[in-house]
């Protein structure tokens, strides 16, 4: 019963979707203000989802089942990641051993579901988007994993979110050490790419390949993809808070940290043009990986 409550209501589905959609509105509003516009009202993203539920869902004459099931695969796994994360932050002692590795895998699932869905839609532009998404995953996973390793080494080799938080409660946040700040920078860029926002919105590049991976999706299935984006926007900043700023996790400070990270994402999104896929790969495998590797070395030395 408690597990179902956790999955469906509190750290899980309902909360994740609501917070994610509000963060999505925050993104749109701040972008609008930066461009000297007014921006949509706060309930705009909720209305978009409700509207998409009421629209017709068109399924192309292709591999129907993978096309229909791919969004649900991504949605269920990202919600599970959000639940594990939320539980670990609520009660650090209850988290299970090795959950950081489970979360690492679950956070890759939305990208994989997009690749599956896009390639089963048999649309040439969608397949271009899928191939770009695949390359981007290859690009950002390496620095992301390296920065996680830096955090794990820093926290005396524990691969449990709860004990990482406990370590930070007793020894101070990771971000205030040399290795911590470098790992945070690398993980931040990886997060930007995972969320699919500019400068890494290559797979959905609207001006080049229309909607990229989402081009054939409509109605309910598109709404599920929008919800995946929303839950990602909930889970990824929380993971970063958990790994790098885990010292004070009171409600007010947690919300302030969350808003701060989302604000940083939006500012980076609005001030950078979209990269080409080769530039993005070079960026991730070059500077970002070097920074992440440096942080691993510094963490091993003990800085």
């Amino acid at each position, binding site marked *: 019963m408690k597990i179902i409550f956790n999955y469906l209501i509190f750290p899980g589905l309902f909360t994740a979707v609501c917070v994610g959609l509000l963060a999505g509105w925050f993104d749109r509003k701040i972008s609008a203000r930066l461009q000297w516009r007014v*921006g949509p009202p706060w309930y705009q993203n909720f209305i978009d989802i*409700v*509207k998409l539920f009421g*629209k*017709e869902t*068109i399924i192309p004459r292709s591999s129907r089942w993978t096309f229909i099931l791919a969004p649900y695969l991504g949605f269920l796994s990202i919600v599970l990641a959000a639940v594990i994360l939320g539980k670990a932050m609520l009660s650090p002692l209850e988290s299970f051993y090795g959950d950081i590795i489970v979360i690492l895998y679950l956070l890759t699932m939305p990208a994989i579901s997009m690749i599956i869905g896009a390639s089963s839609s048999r649309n040439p532009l969608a397949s271009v988007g899928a191939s770009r998404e695949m390359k981007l995953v290859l690009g950002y996973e390496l620095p992301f994993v390296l920065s996680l390793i830096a955090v794990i080494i820093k926290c005396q080799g524990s691969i449990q979110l709860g004990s990482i938080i406990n370590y930070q409660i007793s020894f101070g946040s990771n971000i205030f050490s040399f290795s911590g700040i470098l790992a945070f920078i690398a993980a931040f860029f990886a997060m930007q790419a995972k969320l699919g926002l500019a400068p890494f919105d290559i797979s959905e590049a609207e001006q080049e390949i229309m909607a990229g991976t*989402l081009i*054939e999706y*409509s109605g309910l299935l598109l709404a599920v993809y929008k919800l995946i984006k929303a839950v990602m926007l909930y889970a990824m900043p929380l993971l970063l808070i958990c790994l790098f700023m885990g010292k004070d996790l009171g409600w007010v400070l947690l919300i302030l940290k969350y808003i701060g990270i989302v604000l940083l994402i939006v500012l980076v999104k609005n001030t950078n043009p979209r990269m080409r896929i080769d530039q993005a790969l070079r960026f991730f495998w070059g500077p970002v990986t070097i920074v992440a590797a440096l942080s691993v070395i510094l963490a091993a030395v003990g800085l």
Partner: protein
Amino acid sequence: MSIKTKALTKSIWVFHVSCGSCNNCDIEILDCFTPRHDIERFGVQLIGSVRHADAILITGAMNRKSVPRMKKIYEQAPKPCVVVAVGQCALSRHMFRYSYNVREPLDEILPVDLYIPGCPPKPEAIISGIVKLVEKLNKGK
């Protein structure tokens, strides 16, 4: 009024098709999204794929090449979807009326829900058109 129509009128995603226009109407449509007439306030968004569209904006005189493509695009859009004709060319073929190339006006090809006249229409005219469209949808189409 059902929640479905309410949500539809509050978030209209627009797919923009130019079938042989001189590009003026298209620029005026983009003007609606600039700071002065920010219509994202009302939830209107330009989107890239016709599968996401709630409204198809058509500009330009429909020539022989673009008519079959236009029909295909309309069939691909998920219903409910409205068709909006923007500019004099889309309304009445304007100066191309007696051209060998432009045989029929738009509303003989597709069911048009809203006409926005002008050559090109001002952004204000487009916004007032959106308001009329919302009123029409609320009354029940």
